[in-house]
């Protein structure tokens, strides 16, 4: 009797969802990899600054991966994010260094100080991102064109526009970059340098923006009607429609949000590098897709978690740091190991999901 009861309670427990399962796997792998790196290569990995450096370098990637996660949850895809990021960075830098004549005149006629250039750069970043999101969202959601082609065209357009605006690399003036590159110093996480002087851990503003975006998107996906709508549309468009979800609007908003986030990512990228270049953020879209996948988002839609995406980005950059610190100096090893790790993650996920599907069938 007692035993029977036990079985009943065990069965009644809420089963872990696919999203949570994949998220748990990702976090476990990231933590174990980082701990292993600490144990084997020690040195840099034991300093908190290593983690902050990863965040500093990848803040923009975190933001575009968040946008991509939303789009992927609705079962769509956006490969224009890298191009938009680079375009925004280019335009932003050219506003800062005054090579875009239009804004020079605007600032002069309004009698504003040089610092206002930053505000205009930010506004332009949001505007470009929104514009891409609007057009792509409309074409995909309302005209029902395959998202891959539309966003591919978006990528071509953004990359082409960069070279139309300026073929030469651009550099932002130092005094404005000093304002943008204010670093937040965290003394208690500092580490001694070679001379034994404590260096505080440094974090850029972009990281805070990125973490805020992660938190907001998490809130959006978990707690709002729109967020649940993303999952519903990605899971099954037909049933979402029958449940009264406005599929067209939901898909449109997903792409709009993704465009806006890639605009913000472009500004963060500019804050980090202070340079506009045609080759900026190359293959960022593929890195973002890879991060989302490692984080447990499925391209088929309906499954995904933005916290996982954050860990996906960190996992990718940990792999890269491990390769560079482990002495594989030849330039090809970095991407070969990244590919191998990606392969491992993807196969692991698929095996886990396949086993679960089989178990469900048995029940």
């Amino acid at each position, binding site marked *: 009797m007692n035993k029977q009861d036990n079985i009943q309670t065990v069965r009644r427990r809420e089963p872990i969802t696919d999203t949570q399962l994949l998220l748990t796997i990702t976090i476990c792998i990231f933590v174990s990899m980082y701990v292993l790196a600490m144990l084997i290569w020690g040195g840099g990995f034991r300093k908190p600054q290593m983690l902050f450096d990863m965040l500093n370098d990848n803040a923009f990637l975190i933001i575009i991966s968040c946008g991509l996660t939303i789009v992927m949850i609705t079962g769509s*895809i956006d490969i224009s994010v890298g191009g938009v990021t680079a375009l925004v960075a280019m335009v932003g830098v050219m506003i800062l260094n005054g090579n875009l004549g239009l804004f020079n005149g605007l600032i002069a006629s309004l009698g504003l100080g040089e610092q206002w250039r930053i505000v205009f750069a930010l506004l332009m970043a949001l505007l470009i991102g929104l514009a891409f999101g609007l057009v792509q969202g409309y*074409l995909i959601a*309302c*005209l*029902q*064109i*395959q998202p*891959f*082609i*539309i966003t*591919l*065209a*978006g*990528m*071509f*357009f953004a*990359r*082409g*526009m960069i*070279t*139309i605006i300026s*073929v030469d690399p651009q550099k932002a003036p130092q005094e404005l970059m000093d304002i943008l590159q204010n670093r937040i110093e965290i003394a208690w996480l500092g580490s001694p340098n070679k001379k034994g002087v404590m260096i505080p851990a440094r974090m850029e503003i972009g990281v805070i923006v990125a973490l805020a975006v992660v938190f907001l998107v998490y809130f959006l996906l978990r707690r709002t009607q729109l967020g649940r709508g993303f999952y519903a549309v990605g899971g099954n*468009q*037909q049933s979402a*429609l029958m449940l009264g979800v406005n599929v067209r609007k939901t898909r449109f908003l997903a792409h709009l949000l993704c465009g806006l986030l890639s605009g913000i990512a472009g500004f963060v990228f500019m804050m980090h590098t202070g340079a506009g270049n*045609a080759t900026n953020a190359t293959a960022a879209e*593929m890195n973002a*897709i*890879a991060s989302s*996948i490692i984080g447990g988002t*499925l*391209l*088929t839609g309906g499954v995904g978690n933005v916290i996982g995406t954050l860990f996906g980005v960190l996992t990718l950059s940990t792999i890269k740091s491990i390769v560079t610190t482990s002495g594989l100096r*030849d*330039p*090809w*090893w*970095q*991407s*070969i190991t*990244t*590919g*191998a790790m*990606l*392969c491992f993650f*993807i*196969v692991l996920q*698929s*095996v886990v*999901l*396949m086993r679960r599907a089989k178990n469900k069938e048995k029940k």
Partner: protein
Amino acid sequence: MKQNQKASGQFWANNSQLLIPLIAILLLVIFNLFRDPSFFSVGITTNNNGDPVLQGNLIAILNGASELVILSMGMTLVTAASGGQDISVGALAAIAGSVFVKVLKSGGAISPLTVIGGFVMCCLVAMLFGAFNGSLVSIFNIQPMIATLILFTCGRSIAYWINGGATPTVSSPIISAIGSFIPGIPIPTPILIVILMAVLFALLFRFTTLGLYIQTVGINQGAARLNGINSVGIKLLSFVLLGACCAVAGVISVSRLSLINHETLLINIEMDAILAVAIGGNSLGGGKFRMLGSVIGAYAIQALTITLYAMKVPSTDVKAYKAVVIIILVVIGSPVVKEAFDRFRKNLRGSRPVHTGKEAS
């Protein structure tokens, strides 16, 4: 007369998906006629070796599109069978090219035998990588774009690694014969290779049931399996065939330049190949396919690029204009616009618009 009309209606009903790529090419032709009629002139000049060769923009389009056409043929099969796209074709072609050069370099003097050996070797390697992609897709049930993301990430580095971090050159009359002209034949060799590949695929579909099987697997994998089709094997085979296409494209590309540069060889061609498949009217979700559509789509893309070059657009800016044309094309071909057009036509005829209920989805 009436029968004739009916037959033509039947023809367009069967080939409606070819409409978009044909419209694209037609638009480009009309545009170029107004812009500069000499765009279409084809002349005969003598090349460095003193052989007469064909020259002109049309030849440049046909010649330059060769790799793209070959890759889009393979991409059509993969798209139809698996409902996804292979984004690693450029990287795979780079690997194949590296293996080809590696074999040529290792054999001392370049003779026809080493060239054939190199080609066979790179075909095998590319098909092996194709099988790797294919097994991830078919056995592990991973979406093609994610499965091929692996090779997309590391493929070009593998190519770099094969050549030990160098970009070796191969100069030999045989290689330049593959890349440009065979002495005595005025048509560029890559065009001949495309024709050969097209004939091979046509024979494959004519004398085997492969085409039907691929469509069946793409439309409904479960149903295909219940009908006794080995759906795992068919998917795998489509990826292996794409691998072979990559090898051919890689060899052509290496022979054109007589050197292998792993970073720039056929860069971004995967996007163009997918685009060719889509412009050709094939669904990117798999199922029914027309290889002819993809081929015409690929030529349309190349014609667009050459037109832009002829208009003195810098090569770095071409992408932006290309994007605009692509968007116009896909908007014309989108289901919503098509439906609106159908309704408009029916209104013209005087009958009431028919609501099929499809708009809701």
